[in-house]
């Protein structure tokens, strides 16, 4: 028998082992978003505060985080102080109040401070659907032209911000600078 045939089972085993090992550290709830590189969907929905109609044009101009949240979402509560801190540092954050009761949302913003520049009231979840949202919190990173550049599913904490998102956001800010 040729030598390479003797090594073949070992090679196959190693190949499979590498894939399975990688699989151990994959998070199955993180789906690759189909929206990356696509323009932020059009919408016309009222604002959470004031009820003025907001459209896609209101989100354009500067790179920003678009944070999908709801008062029914427990992890959003964990995320909220981090968003407050980011807003204080000058990070532009827009909110989508997803499938929520508006009175509850107003109460939440009053109680826990409001880090959002604007807040879209998406009671039916139609904008969420067009964004491919399947839970909360989810956060999109859009550039000044309104193209979705990144999506993060789950709670943004200090580590996530530092290691994953801060660099991307800064990159978009630098990109927007003439």
């Amino acid at each position, binding site marked *: 028998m040729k030598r390479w045939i003797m090594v073949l089972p070992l090679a196959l085993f190693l190949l499979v082992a590498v894939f399975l090992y990688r699989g151990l550290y994959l998070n199955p709830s993180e*789906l690759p978003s189909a929206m990356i590189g696509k323009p932020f969907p059009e919408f016309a929905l009222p604002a959470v505060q004031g009820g003025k109609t907001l459209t896609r044009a209101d989100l354009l101009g500067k790179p920003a985080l678009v944070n999908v949240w709801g008062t029914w979402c427990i992890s959003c509560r964990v995320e909220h102080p981090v968003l407050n801190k980011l807003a204080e540092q000058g990070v532009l954050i827009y909110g989508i109040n997803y499938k929520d009761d508006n009175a509850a949302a107003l109460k939440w913003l009053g109680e826990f401070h409001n880090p959002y520049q604007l807040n879209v009231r998406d009671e039916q979840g139609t904008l969420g659907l067009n964004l491919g949202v399947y839970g909360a919190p989810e956060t999109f990173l859009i550039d000044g032209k309104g193209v979705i550049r990144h999506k993060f599913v789950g709670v943004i904490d200090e580590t996530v911000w530092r290691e994953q998102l801060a660099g991307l956001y800064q990159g978009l800010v630098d990109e927007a600078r003439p």
Partner: protein
Amino acid sequence: MKRWLAAAILGLSLAGVAHAAIDTYQFANDADRERFHQLTKELRCPKCQNQDIADSNAPIAADLRREIFRMLGEGKDNQQIVDFMVDRYGDFVRYKPALNSRTWLLWFGPAGLLLGGLVVIAVIVRRRRSQRAEGVTELSEAERQRLAQLLDKDQTHD
């Protein structure tokens, strides 16, 4: 006894219904209803990942069912509805993935492995067969002399 049997049958028949999420949609015709069932079975819930959206009680699955119902009402065909979902949620939502550059391994991998296995078996069988065929051939003159020598040597040592 009869009562027990009736209860058991009733229980079993209910079990079949219990797992399906309950919506009340009025379809224009039976064909639409059929397509609705087919599509909701074929699309996967993005939140509760091992359920189709027909089966799932997650709010997002209910939203997707509503969207499918709406699009059926608008007269969209199955391909348009599936594309709508894939545009938003990616290939992930399809239980029947489309054939493209990212999924060809998924589609043809198993057949490829089977074919590879058959080839390996064929090679092994053929090699064995040719070995056996060689085994029957006569020894050459030189080999016969060497055999005799070896046997002789053995005997002298005894």
